[in-house]
């Protein structure tokens, strides 16, 4: 490169293609990372350091831990888990070592909740420590945050029958497909059905029962019905059960949670859950309760979630693989 008298610059255009020229001027130099605070294979970073770090200088304090093993009947039972409520936060200034405790009642509820949800995200690990050192405990060194949105206030408990009758209740496998109609307004129906030709949304659904009239009594309390006959020759009375007793599978809470206060006038708690759905009196539902399934409980196979599952038997005999391969 040389200068002329008129200050024209002779410039080699090939320089423009050099990374060293382009990056700081036009393309930009950037680091990429998949996670905050973690290094992940494939990240473009210095060494194996996280691209972005966001460290917390806040500790969360509370006085209430309610066991998920039915310690409080108004909350959903989750075996081996606990509802841990946070009341205060201890903010620490790393530079000056100053500390400040903020009570939740002194903060906007939304702000306090967001702070908890940000610092205690789902899937994260936490350490829980009792402040009273004289209290004996057996606390694990580490716990996982399984849910951080709040408390699950129970509305009803459904207990599946132990008689071997299919009840139609299921929780969906897979991500729900958003197969909307042409106007993106909604779908015609859920499930694979001959009734629909436009949509086929059969993943990511939930059903709370099966309304076949033959299974109507499965969702109500059923008395035992016994048929007795007397042999006129021998005089021996024989009996056989026409219908086995089973309790109502729906057990509603005695009173709706405060979140549903505005519906209290619309329900009669004493009768709530008496049946799944109205059918008709024209069908005798006392002799059959549901559609018997052929697979015994013991036939179901389990896995640990880390390997390939054989899954439960289904109607075609083989499990259907329509999900992603999981490590």
């Amino acid at each position, binding site marked *: 490169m040389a200068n002329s008298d008129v200050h024209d610059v002779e410039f080699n255009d090939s320089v423009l293609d050099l990374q060293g020229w382009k990056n700081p001027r036009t393309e930009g130099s950037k680091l990429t990372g998949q996670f905050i605070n973690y290094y992940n294979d494939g990240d473009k970073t210095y060494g194996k350091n996280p691209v972005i770090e966001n*460290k917390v200088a806040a*500790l969360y304090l509370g*006085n209430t831990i309610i066991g998920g*093993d039915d310690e409080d009947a108004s909350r959903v039972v*989750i*075996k081996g888990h*606990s509802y*841990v409520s946070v009341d205060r936060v*201890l903010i620490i200034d*790393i530079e000056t070592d100053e*500390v400040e*405790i903020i009570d*939740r009642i002194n903060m906007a509820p939304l702000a306090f909740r967001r702070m*908890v949800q940000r*610092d*205690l995200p789902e899937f*994260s690990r936490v350490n*829980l420590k*009792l402040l009273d*050192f004289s209290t*004996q405990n*057996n606390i*694990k060194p580490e716990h996982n945050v*399984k*849910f951080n949105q709040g*408390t699950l206030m*129970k*509305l009803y*408990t459904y207990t599946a029958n132990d008689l071997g*009758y*299919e009840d139609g*209740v*299921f929780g*969906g496998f*897979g*991500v*729900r497909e958003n197969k909307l109609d042409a106007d993106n307004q909604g*779908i*015609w*129906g859920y499930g694979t059905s001959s*009734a629909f030709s436009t949509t086929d949304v059969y993943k990511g*659904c939930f059903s*709370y*029962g099966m309304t*076949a009239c033959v299974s109507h009594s499965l969702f109500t309390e059923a008395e035992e019905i016994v048929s007795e006959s007397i042999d006129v020759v021998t005089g021996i009375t024989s009996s056989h059960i026409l219908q086995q007793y089973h309790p109502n599978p729906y057990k509603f809470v005695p009173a709706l949670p405060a*979140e549903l206060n505005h519906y209290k006038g619309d329900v009669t708690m004493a009768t709530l*859950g*008496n*049946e799944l759905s*109205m059918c008709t*009196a024209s069908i005798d539902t006392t002799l059959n309760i549901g559609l018997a399934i052929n697979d015994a409980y013991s036939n179901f196979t389990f896995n*640990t979630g880390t390997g390939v*599952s054989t*899954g*439960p038997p289904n*109607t075609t005999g083989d499990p259907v*693989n*329509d*999900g*992603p391969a999981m490590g």
Partner: protein
Amino acid sequence: MQTAMFMGSYHILKNSGSVSAFYDDIIFWDLATNKNRYFVTFMEGLYGYPNNGQESIGTMEIDYPHYLNSSGSTASYDDQGNRISARYDAFLDYWEVENGPSQANHQYNGSIPVTQLKSDRYYLTTLTSSVSTVRTYHYEHFADTTARSDTRSFSSSYFYPFSSHQLSVLRVEPTVILNLNKENEMYDGLGEKGFVIVPEQTHQNVKDNLNYYLEKAGLLGKASITKSPVRPDQAKAVRKRKRNKGNNRRSR
């Protein structure tokens, strides 16, 4: 036993206690008007896929059915109104409407007790893992004394006999669910001072001096706890360069 679709008082829910009416009048309506969030927890949290998240406690968030009926009823949700402010078929699918009673009204709740789940989670279980099971269910109701029946197939992760579940409404508060077995891990109770939770991403300086900061905040008794020295990798990123004054001065 109820004998017909049109029997009963105005509120079929109040009259019959039907679970379908409960979902239609309260749960779906609440969801459609953004009043509350609802969750279903299967098998008391067992059999969930062990990913340390919501799936691992068998808990799914449900949504109201996003059906499209010829009337365009989904546009009529009014959070100031109640269920009857929207059309009776707001939560009924195409087949339920087509096969409903000739004088269908809000007392008709259809016969497909199915809705969709929220979010893009896979809701795996250890029952299914990467392999799902497809089950076919039968639905039926009588409309004008005529039997109407349909079958639907769904991909399921929880299913009979693993179909026991609890329905819940979310109480929005700063509460987290931890895999803490209180009975076993806190057999002697919480004590008088409560507990502290240390988040995973807490600054290392705080983790190293936890008792120091707790004592400084008045949460622990005075024990004259001193701070640990700062770890080398926690030092400030910009270090002051040592100056050798003698070398920098120019001699005159």
